[in-house]
C-alpha cells in the first residue's frame, strides 16, 4: 500500500507541473495585468511603467515562469501585487477559512445524505422514497449560485437568522469563546446551502447501492439466520453500500473547490474561492497560479484519499 501511495504521488508530480504551466500561460493570455486597473490621471503613467519593470511584468512568460518556479520550490510563492504581501501568508489567512467551510459542508453533506439515502433505499418506491428522490432531482437541477442567493436572501436578510457576510463578527478577541461561536455562526449558512445541493449525489448513490445490496444472496442468508430487520440493514446492507460513497469522497473534495468559488463570492466569505475570483479579475498572477496549484493538489490528493479509504473499507480490494 505504501508503495502504491508513493507511486501515485510520483505520477502526481508531472500532473502538477503541467497544470502550473497551463495556468501560467492562460493567466498571461488574459488581457491586462495587475497594474492596468490603475488608469487614473492622478497616477503618473511613468510610475506605473517603473513598477511594471520592477515586477518583471514586461518579461516573456517563460522567464516569469522560471522565476516563479525557482522561488516556489524554495517555498516562496512570490508576492501578491495587489495585497503587497507574501502569497504564502495571504493564502495562509484564507486557507483556514476555506478549510473550516469545507469541513462543515462535508459534515452537513453526510448528515443529510446518510439518513435520506438509507430511508430512500430501504423503502424504495414508497411515497417517502419518491419525496426524497424528488428532492435529489430538484437538487441536481438547481444551480448552486442561484440557490445560495435565495438562501442568503431568505435566511440571512428576510428572517435575519444568520449573518450575511464575512467570516467573523469584527472586533472580537481571537481565540475567545465568542469568537469561535461567531465563526461557526458565519459558517452555518454557506455550509448548509452548499451541502443541500452537493449532497444529492451521495443520496442517490447510497439509495441505489442499498436497493442493489438488498437483493444479494448474503442478505437472504442473514434473514434466513433470523437476524432482525434492523440488524440486517445496519450490519449487512449499510456497510456494504458505503463502498461507493467512500469512493465518492475524493470527488466530493474536488466538487467542494468549485462550490466554494461560488459560495464564498455570494456570502463575501474571505476564503480561497473568493481570493481566486478576485485575483483573476485583478490579474494578480502570482496569487492565481498559487491558488490554482493548491486546488489542483487538493483534487489529486482527494482522489488518492478515495483509493485509500476504499482499500480500508473493503479489504478485498488490493491496491497494487
Amino acid at each position, binding site marked *: 500500500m505504501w508503495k502504491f501511495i508513493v507511486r501515485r504521488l510520483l505520477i502526481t508530480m508531472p500532473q502538477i507541473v503541467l497544470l502550473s504551466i497551463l495556468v501560467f500561460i492562460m493567466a498571461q493570455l488574459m*488581457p*491586462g495585468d495587475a497594474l492596468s486597473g490603475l488608469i487614473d490621471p492622478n497616477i503618473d*503613467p511613468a*510610475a506605473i511603467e517603473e513598477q511594471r519593470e520592477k515586477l518583471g511584468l514586461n518579461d516573456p512568460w517563460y522567464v516569469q515562469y522560471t522565476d516563479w518556479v525557482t522561488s516556489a520550490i524554495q517555498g516562496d510563492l512570490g508576492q501578491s501585487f*495587489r495585497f*503587497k*504581501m507574501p502569497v504564502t501568508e495571504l493564502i495562509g489567512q484564507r486557507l483556514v477559512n476555506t478549510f473550516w467551510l469545507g469541513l462543515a459542508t462535508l459534515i452537513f453533506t453526510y448528515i443529510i445524505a446518510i439518513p435520506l439515502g438509507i430511508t430512500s433505499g430501504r423503502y424504495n418506491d414508497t411515497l417517502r422514497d419518491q419525496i426524497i428522490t424528488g428532492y435529489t432531482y430538484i437538487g441536481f437541477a438547481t*444551480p448552486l449560485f442561484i440557490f445560495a442567493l435565495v438562501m442568503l436572501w431568505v435566511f440571512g436578510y428576510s428572517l435575519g437568522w444568520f449573518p450575511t457576510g*464575512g467570516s467573523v463578527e469584527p472586533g472580537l478577541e481571537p481565540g475567545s469563546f465568542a469568537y469561535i461561536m461567531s465563526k461557526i455562526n458565519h459558517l452555518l449558512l454557506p455550509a448548509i446551502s452548499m451541502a443541500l445541493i452537493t449532497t444529492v449525489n451521495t443520496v442517490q448513490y447510497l439509495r441505489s447501492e442499498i436497493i442493489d445490496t438488498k437483493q444479494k444472496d448474503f442478505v437472504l442468508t442473514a434473514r434466513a439466520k433470523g437476524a432482525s430487520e434492523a440488524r440486517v440493514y445496519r450490519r449487512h446492507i449499510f456497510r456494504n453500500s458505503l463502498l461507493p460513497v467512500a469512493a465518492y469522497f475524493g470527488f466530493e473534495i474536488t466538487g467542494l473547490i468549485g462550490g466554494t468559488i461560488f459560495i464564498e463570492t455570494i456570502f463575501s466569505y474571505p476564503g480561497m474561492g*473568493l481570493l481566486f475570483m478576485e485575483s483573476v479579475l485583478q490579474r494578480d498572477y502570482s496569487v492565481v497560479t498559487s491558488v490554482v496549484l493548491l486546488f489542483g493538489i487538493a483534487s489529486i490528493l482527494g482522489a488518492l484519499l478515495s483509493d485509500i479509504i476504499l482499500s480500508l473499507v473493503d479489504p478485498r480490494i488490493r491496491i497494487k
Partner: protein
Amino acid sequence: MKRSSWRILLFAIMLGFVLALAACTSGGEKQADQDEKSAENGKKEEKSGEKVYSIEDFSVETTNEGEAIEGGHFKFGIVTDTAFEGQLNYNFYSGVPDSEIIKWFDDPLLSADEKHNYTQDGAATFEVDDSGKVFTFKIRDNVNWHDGKPVTAEDWLFAYEVIADPDYTGVRYGSDFTVIEGIEEYHNGEADSISGIEVVDEKTLKITYKEASPSLLSGGIWPYALPKHIFKDIPVAEMAESDVVRKNPIGFGPFKVDSITPGEAVVLTKNEDYWQGEPKLDKVTVKVVNPKTVVQALKTGEVDAVHEFPSDQYPDNAEMSNVEFLGNVDMAYTYIGFKLGTWDKEKKEVKPDPNKKMSDVNLRKAMWHAIDNNAVGEKFYNGLRWNATTLIPPSHPNFHDKDNPGVAYDPEKAKKILDDAGYKDTNGDGMRENSDGEELVINFASMSGGETAEPIANYYIQAWKNVGLNVQLLDGRLIEFNSFYDRIGQNGDDDPAIDIYQAAWSVGTDVDPAGLYGRDALFNFPRYANEENDKLLAEGVSEKAMDLKYRQKVYNEWQQLMVEEIPVIPTVYRAVLVPVNKRVINYSIQYNWGDFHEIAVTQEETEKAK
C-alpha cells in the same frame, strides 16, 4: 468485473444526463433571468417617464434633527465585491477601499475646501513666499500620533523620502513629486537627501519647488506624514507589507484602529487626544458590503452609511424609510473619444495623423450634434447622469464654465454640417460616404459592464445612423475592461481598428487637464495635439495663473477650444449618492470634508426600514 464496468458506464451516462440537465437548467435560468431583467427594464422605463431625479434635490449634508447621545457605535460600509487589500497607510495604499478605511484613523496635514484649495484650517498651516516656489509649513502643536509622540516635520520629510526612494513599491512617485527641487537626484540615487526639503525646526518644514504653479495649492502637495520613529528600521521595500501597515496601522486621525479582520472589517475606537477635539462617537466599524446586498444591509441597519451607493439601484430604493440619501456631483465625466493619431513611443508624445478617419472636425461636430445626452441620462440613469457640456466637470465650481453650452442636440444641424462638408450618400444605401466618395464605416469601441452598457452603445449607434453615419460596434460586441484599455492604448500600442470609443475619466482635485490632453500624456487616448492647446495648458499652471481670475480665463478658453476642436465629446456628468441612516447627524459627503470627529448618532440602535 463486468458488473462494475457496467456501473461505470451507467455512472457516465448519468453524469452526462446531470450535466445536460444542469446545462439546460442553468441556460434556462439565464434566459429567465434575462427576461426578468428586460421586464424590469420595461418597468423602469415606464417609471422613468415620471421618475427622473435631479442632483439639485439632494443635500450634501445630513439634515436629520435630534439630540446626539453620548458616544455611539457608527457602522460604515465599503461597497465592493472584493476584499479590501489592507495596505492601511496613505503612503502605500492603492485601492479605494483601503483609503475609505484610512480616512477614519489618519488625516492629511493640509485641509482643503470644497473648491479643492488648501486652507489654513488643517493640522498644518502654510505660507508661500513671494516667488511662489517656497512653501513653509507649520504643524500644529497638538497634533500627535496615536502613540502619543508628536507629528513632526521630520515625519513629513520621511514620507517624501520613502516615496522617492528607488525601492518604494507604490505608484505615488509622479509629477507631484518631481516638481520638488532635488528630488529626482534623490530618486536616481545621486543624492543622499532631497535638497528642496528642509526641516526648519521640530514642527516646521520648508519645501522648495522648481517652479511656482497654482496646481500646488489645489492638491499638488503630498500632505501625508509617515511616523519615522516607527518606520525608520524597516527597509523601504518591505514597508508596505510590514505589520505597522497591515496589522497595527497608525495615524493621527479621530479614531484608532482597534482590530482588523483581514479583507473584511476594521474596528476603530475614538482617539481622545485628537487634535480637532474629542470625537463624539465611541466606536466605528468599517466593513465590506457586497454591492448585491447593500440595499438589504442598509434596510436591516447592518450599516449606517456606505461610501458610495450603486446609483442604478437608487430608483427602486428612493423611498427607503430609514435613510436619507445625500448626493453630490462626482468628480468624473463620461466621454466619446475620436482617434486622431498615434503614440510615438520613442519620443513619448502624441503623433497626430491628419489622415485618420475622424480627423475632419466637421464630422466630429456633426456626431456631437446627433446625440441627445440628456435623453441618455434620463432614460438609462433616471437623471442621475446628465448632459455634459465641457471637459471640466461642475465638481470644480471655480473652473467649470457654466455659460459654455457645449454642442447642443440638433440632428438637423448635424445633417447640414455633413452635407456641407461633402459627406453625401453617393451609392444610395442610405449611409453617407466620405467627401472622396469612399464608404465610411466608423468603428466604435465600448466597454462592457453593467446592464446599461449595451443599450447605451446601441442608442448612440442608432442616433448616428439617423443622421446617415454608419457606425459599427467594434468586433460586434462590447469589450472587457482590461482589453479595452489595452486596445485604446494604455501601453501606447493603439489598436488602429478603433475610430471612436466611449470611456470615462475621474478627475483629480487640481483642474489641470494636461495629464489627459497634454502632448506628452500617455493617457491622451485620442492622441490629440494642437499648439493652441499646448499653450493654454502651459498657461494654466504658470506663475501668472496663481491669480484665480486669470486661471479661470485660461481654462474657460481651453474649454471653448475643446468644444471647437472636439478631440472628445463629453457625454454625461454623474451624481454620487450616499445613503445615511436617520439616526446619524453631522455627516457630509462634501469634497475634502474632514470633520469625522463631529459625527454623532441620536439613538443607540441603527434605525431599521419599515
